């Protein structure tokens, strides 16, 4: 029964993906992409990877979708594109099918029994006092990757900000919509936001032992922030604000500070103090979550518009 469900899911997923790449128009393609992301999240659940499923839905589909939709709105209706070569599509189809077939063969040829690090993680996890092995890998065993990934996120915000017309990156990003928010949207923001924040905080709290964690939580919090901006409940923040920048830096550099502190407490960079692992890890997660939420929100809002004239 579940196999049938999986097969149907796979087919729908494929259909969605095909829809995205074959739809000529931008908006339907993006909408199809968001749907595809949700289906992909379902597939992750079926693969017993709930953490990944939450991340995919929150970021891969959710925030990405918002970013892409904003892009569609900003693009000219009729993009100037040269007429593609008529041979291209058939050729691309042949190439793509060949690649898919080759990869399918590779998947079928994967070794049995499959190699795995699960046993290593299971052996090392109790020392961290964490219940969620994925959080353990992210924040303890491969903390370096996660730390650098925070830097990547910060850097992509820097990249977005670098596109500001003001080389010094000052001012507020343009509001999501030029018109004042309609009443329903303001109401929605006021009602939904507190609930969303609660969900986000729960995800953060649960992440130590159950599926969830900084990214999923940060994405939900960012979405709530955007909702408040859309409902005109808060203004977009000014990019040069020192407080905002502190929030941006809190995650990566708080993490880095803990990493350096590891030299003193555990004798190794990115080590955690013995006995207090879980507390420190949760503190790191809080800092990261705040930064992720702010960074994601600012990335969606786009580059600051330049210094405001008094």
């Amino acid at each position, binding site marked *: 029964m*579940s*196999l049938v469900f999986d097969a149907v899911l796979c087919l729908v997923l*494929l259909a969605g*993906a095909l829809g995205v*790449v074959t739809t000529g128009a931008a908006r339907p*393609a993006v909408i199809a*992409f968001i749907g*595809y992301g949700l289906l*992909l999240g379902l*597939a*992750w659940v079926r*693969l*017993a*990877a709930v*953490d*990944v499923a939450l*991340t*995919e839905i929150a*970021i*891969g589909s959710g925030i*990405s979708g918002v970013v*892409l939709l*904003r*892009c569609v709105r*900003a*693009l*000219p209706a009729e*993009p100037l*594109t*040269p007429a593609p070569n008529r041979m*291209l599509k058939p050729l*691309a189809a042949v*190439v*793509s099918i060949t*690649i898919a*077939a080759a*990869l*399918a063969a590779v*998947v*079928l040829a*994967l070794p049995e029994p499959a190699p*795995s*690090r*699960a*046993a290593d*993680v*299971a052996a090392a996890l109790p020392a961290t006092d964490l219940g969620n092995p*994925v959080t353990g*890998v*992210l924040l303890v065993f*491969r903390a370096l*990757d996660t730390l650098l*990934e925070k830097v990547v*996120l910060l850097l*992509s915000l820097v990249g977005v900000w670098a*596109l500001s017309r003001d080389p010094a990156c000052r001012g507020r990003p343009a509001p999501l919509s030029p018109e004042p928010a309609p009443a329903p949207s303001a109401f929605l923001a006021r009602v939904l936001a507190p609930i969303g924040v609660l969900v986000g905080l729960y995800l953060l709290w649960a992440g130590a032992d159950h599926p969830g964690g900084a*990214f999923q939580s940060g994405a939900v919090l960012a979405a709530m922030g955007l909702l408040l901006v859309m409902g005109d409940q808060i203004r977009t923040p000014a990019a040069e604000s020192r407080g905002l920048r502190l929030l941006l830096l809190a995650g990566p550099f708080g993490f880095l500070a803990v990493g350096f502190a590891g030299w003193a407490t555990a004798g190794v960079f990115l080590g955690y103090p013995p006995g207090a692992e879980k507390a420190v890890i949760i503190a790191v997660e809080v800092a990261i979550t705040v930064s992720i939420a702010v960074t994601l929100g600012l*990335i969606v809002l*786009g*580059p600051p518009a330049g210094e405001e004239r008094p």
Partner: protein
Amino acid sequence: MTGALLFGLAGAALVGCGVYGLLTAPGALGRVLGFNILGGGVFLMFGVVARRGAGAGFGADPVPQALVITGIVVAFCATALAVALLVRLCAVQAEAARGGDGDKET
């Protein structure tokens, strides 16, 4: 394990779809979408690798799961940067079209 295998094949097919999108998309937005589909396929294949490596009481090998989470975030960053570039490019081009002259130096 057949379920995992099914998703593995789906991942391979998604990679094919993504490649098709990357090859045929006429504009940058289409290529960004193609890249995301392609990335999704790769991640799904990684998920299948994780699922096959289930053991020690875990439903799936946690290491690939963690790597996929990192990968999704990185892919999002890439998408965001590409979209920001595209939006700015369109704005500059529109301005140039209105102003009558673009910056011919580049």
